[in-house]
């Protein structure tokens, strides 16, 4: 009994699915149906996305979930919140917390100019302002650091080589360095689109004429409607023309040399096309021509398919070059503490490069100056960090929810008066909604700053990217 019921439910589900599919087909006109048909013939295989815009707090913050800094910041404003840390060291009773806000100069400029930062013209004209960003934040010191105060973090970053900005092939008002390869790719994409547009127009017109004259369509629709059309024109000076055209069958009309079409043929064609190739009329045509007719249409599409394959290839190439292009920036950051708390100043060079599809390499090299505010308490040194970011999930959007990424990084720090510190980190970045991510990291260190023992710290937090949030809300309107 139960089996019979399940079968009925399954059958009902299949019926609903099938009727749903046919309903979808019924809502398409010839133009949209052709777009879908052509699209089905080409395989879009672009699944990378920009992965070099840092929304996490600066890496020098002890509570940052990031070991490495990236070349560029969010286009507008981003916020990073480190909620808690879980340490293998039993002395870490208090959860460290930090908060940092990074704003691009572009967002401040848009605010100053009272302009919509996502306005196309304003965005393109002021790309240079997106090269510079400022960070402000605070850090609760790690308990083992011996500092009990909030540390104030301030920093600035300038993107010197910027090849991942969409408008970097346009006219930039500030320090433009054009990526010749990428601009060539964009020019190729434009040319491919032009050729594909032309091919689409030729296919559409060819199919319209094929359908108009196809035997079953002609017998059922074209011939009787042509007769009625001529009758409606039979008045006054048109009478002679109508008499001349009347004996012709549809097969003899609408010939391949369209320059020879009569005025009435042109007018009828427009009338017929608007009636039978629109959303209301096209499903009936499709039913009429059946599988044989659709196969004929597919062969017409196949004849011009190369134009659409080239368009897809050009689009893929342009996007991949956009997403893997090298970037280089310089940054300066300070961490200052009141009273006897240590101050730290860091100058940094940052390099990002897409080494392979969906794999980004970030390299940082810093010079660090630390003032412990005690006699002889000044130390200097260098830090080198490298991280590979692997994009785990296929995400087909530049904006919207980020893909899940898995990062592996390593760091070495060599300061005067202390032994070298080596750290390794693994991190998973989990997208929650558009513009909000949850980074979770585990860091392994041979020693922490003040305690000469091995340590493992787990950190997690949230990052907010207002560009994506704004895009999401604009899109939702």
């Amino acid at each position: 009994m139960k089996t019979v019921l399940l079968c009925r439910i399954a059958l009902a589900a299949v019926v609903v699915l099938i009727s749903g599919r046919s309903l979808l087909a019924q809502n398409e006109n010839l133009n949209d149906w052709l777009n879908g048909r052509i699209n089905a013939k080409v395989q879009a295989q672009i699944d990378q996305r920009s992965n070099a815009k840092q929304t996490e707090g600066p890496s020098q913050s002890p509570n940052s979930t990031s070991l490495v800094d990236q070349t560029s910041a969010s286009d507008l404003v981003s916020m990073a919140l480190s909620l808690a840390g879980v340490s293998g060291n039993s002395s870490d009773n208090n959860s460290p917390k930090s908060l940092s806000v990074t704003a691009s100069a572009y967002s401040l400029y848009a605010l100053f100019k009272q302009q919509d930062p996502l306005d196309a013209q304003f965005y393109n004209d002021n790309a240079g302002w997106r090269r510079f960003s400022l960070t402000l934040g605070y850090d609760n010191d790690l308990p083992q650091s011996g500092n009990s105060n909030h540390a104030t973090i301030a920093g600035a970053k300038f993107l010197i080589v910027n090849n991942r900005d969409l408008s970097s092939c346009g006219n930039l008002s500030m320090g433009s360095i054009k990526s010749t390869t990428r601009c060539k790719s964009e020019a190729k994409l434009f040319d491919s689109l032009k050729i594909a547009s032309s091919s689409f127009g030729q296919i559409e017109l060819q199919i319209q004429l094929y359908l108009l004259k196809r035997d079953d369509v002609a017998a059922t629709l074209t011939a009787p409607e042509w007769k009625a059309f001529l009758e409606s024109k039979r008045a006054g000076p048109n009478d002679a023309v109508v008499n001349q055209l009347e004996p012709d069958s549809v097969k003899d009309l609408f010939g391949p040399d369209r320059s020879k079409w009569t005025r009435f043929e042109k007018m009828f064609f427009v009338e017929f096309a608007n009636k039978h190739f629109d959303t209301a009329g096209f499903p009936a045509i499709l039913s009429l021509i059946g599988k044989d007719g659709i196969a004929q249409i597919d062969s017409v599409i196949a004849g011009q398919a190369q134009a659409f394959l080239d368009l897809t290839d050009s689009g893929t190439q342009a996007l991949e070059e956009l997403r893997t292009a090298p970037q280089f920036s310089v940054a300066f950051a300070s961490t200052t503490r009141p009273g006897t708390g240590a101050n730290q100043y860091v100058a940094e060079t940052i390099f990002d490069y897409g080494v392979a599809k969906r794999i980004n390499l970030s390299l940082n090299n810093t010079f660090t100056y630390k003032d412990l505010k005690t006699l002889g308490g000044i130390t200097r040194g260098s830090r080198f960090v490298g991280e590979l970011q692997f994009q785990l999930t296929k995400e087909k959007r530049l904006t919207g929810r980020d893909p899940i990424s898995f990062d592996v990084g390593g760091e070495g720090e060599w300061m005067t008066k202390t032994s070298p510190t080596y750290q390794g980190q693994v991190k998973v970045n989990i997208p929650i909604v558009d513009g909000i991510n949850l980074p979770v990291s585990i860091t392994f260190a041979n020693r922490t700053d003040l305690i000469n023992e091995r340590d493992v710290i787990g950190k997690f937090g949230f990052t907010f990217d207002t560009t994506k949030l704004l895009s999401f809300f604009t899109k939702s309107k």
Partner: protein
Amino acid sequence: MGVTKSPRKESVAVFVEVSGGEFLLYRVTVRGVRPIFTLVDSEVNVLLLSNKNTPANNSPLVYERHWPLPADSREAVANHTLGMNFQAAPITYSYVVEHHLANGSLVLIDDIDFTSSTPEDWFFQGLSVTTD
């Protein structure tokens, strides 16, 4: 394909009495950054309008084109196709085609929004155009 098409008015074909002074006006309005689009006459393979033209308005970005212009070659039956790329998604193209009659009045032929959040998307909107 992630293109959302929202037509307020859509036509498949139009007959334009060019000899009587009629013409078409094409208008593409862009909301988003870095548009890439081409409007071509597929019969003569000629670019009528694209993102490389000087916009009629900058904010929002509006591109316009009268057809036919004196220099345009005109076929008796043609297809004018707008091809849109969404590399800088999310982006919305609003496509309007007006048929201006000899008496100065106009008939709206197309008024359609195309929106996508997927950068690899493309979409084509054709209009068959016959002239006297």
